[in-house]
């Protein structure tokens, strides 16, 4: 599961939805892997505004990844300033790093724990189990 997805995932239990502690889910015993994909600059630009940066930093530090900068990069930072005009925009180093963190770093095994109710969602082979027992729906 990509780190990008983790920045959007909340606890599935209804009573948790209203509390801010249900987001983000905290990884436990996590095993990470890198799956290389093509960089998609237009997508990065559109998703950038939707990210919750502080939570992304929290998750990264919980995974033990290098710390991210304090503030989120601006959309203009993603384009390489050296690329000549008229040509297609080429991604900058910031864009490449962001792509690496969000779309290539994947959680393979482990658990996701809700900060509010403590429910554990198991992650196996990158697939998280969000099926709830009937009494929690």
């Amino acid at each position, binding site marked *: 599961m990509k780190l990008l997805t983790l920045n959007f*995932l909340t606890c*599935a239990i209804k009573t948790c939805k209203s509390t801010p502690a249900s987001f983000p889910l905290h990884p436990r015993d996590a095993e990470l892997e890198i799956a290389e994909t093509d960089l998609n600059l237009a997508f990065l630009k*559109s998703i950038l505004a939707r990210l919750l940066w502080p939570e992304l930093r929290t998750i990264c530090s919980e995974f033990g990844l290098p710390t991210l900068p304090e503030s989120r990069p601006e959309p203009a930072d993603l384009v390489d300033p050296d690329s000549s005009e008229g040509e297609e925009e080429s991604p900058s180093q910031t864009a490449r790093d962001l792509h690496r963190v969000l779309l290539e770093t994947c959680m393979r095994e482990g658990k996701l724990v809700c900060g509010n109710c403590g429910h554990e969602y198991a992650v196996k082979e990158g697939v998280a*189990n969000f099926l*709830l027992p009937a009494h929690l729906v």
Partner: protein
Amino acid sequence: MSRPEDLLPPDLFYNDSESRKYTTSSRIQKIQSDMTHRALSLLNLTHPSMILDVGCGSGLSGEILSQSEEEGTPAGPHVWIGFDISSSMLGVALEKEVEGDLFLADAGQGVPFRAGTFDAAISISAIQWLCNAESSDESPAGRLSRFFNGLYASLRRGGRAVCQFYPKNDEQKKMVSQAAVKAGFGAGLLEDDPGTKNAKTYLVLTVGGGELDGDITGVVKGMDGVDVMDHRRRTKDRKRGEDRKGSKAWIVRKKEQMEKKGKVVKATSKYTGRKRRIAF
């Protein structure tokens, strides 16, 4: 035609052998890919988006979402997140190494994403499964409403969702679309090849706000073979208060009605329907 929904719950019906059969059948692959392309054309995406695939199964539709523009996906490649209730189906998807993130989840239990996550959502041949409840402590209506409420919250303003499904009958079609409307969506039903055995029903949903122009009728405007059936009352055409009960126009109309019936009616004068002066 037998309906798999009537036989078993989805997580049991799509076991290992059934999932493999479903995924390797070239006929089903063709139908699924046609429907995904149709859904994408209804979504009308303009830039690479974040898409939710409800009931993604073995990723037949997801594969199309992650294709690039040259391969025939408008504004692709998109990033998608899929969920499905059948672990065997997801197993097949893992073997195929699809690019989207997969979840084992029941759409009838809600959509566990924070508000405004997705640009769009698609669902191909899945939500008819929500019309069945497997235990007595849940109901089809409850499952549908949880799903649509969750979906509505997780789409950004101005987002769209297209759900293709196989309704069992008109009643079911109505139940699904009403659940969507209740959740706040602007909903429209679109039927391809109506009246034939291969009729396909698409539920096109819009979330208000954003850059979307107007309502659901804006989506299908200019499309071939689409009749817009707009049953909403035209409140704009009728001037407000013109015919309100007790107003002069209303009294005059009623008097005419009575006269036509042959009743004795007082003549209309400048005093008709006038307010009495406050005496004190």
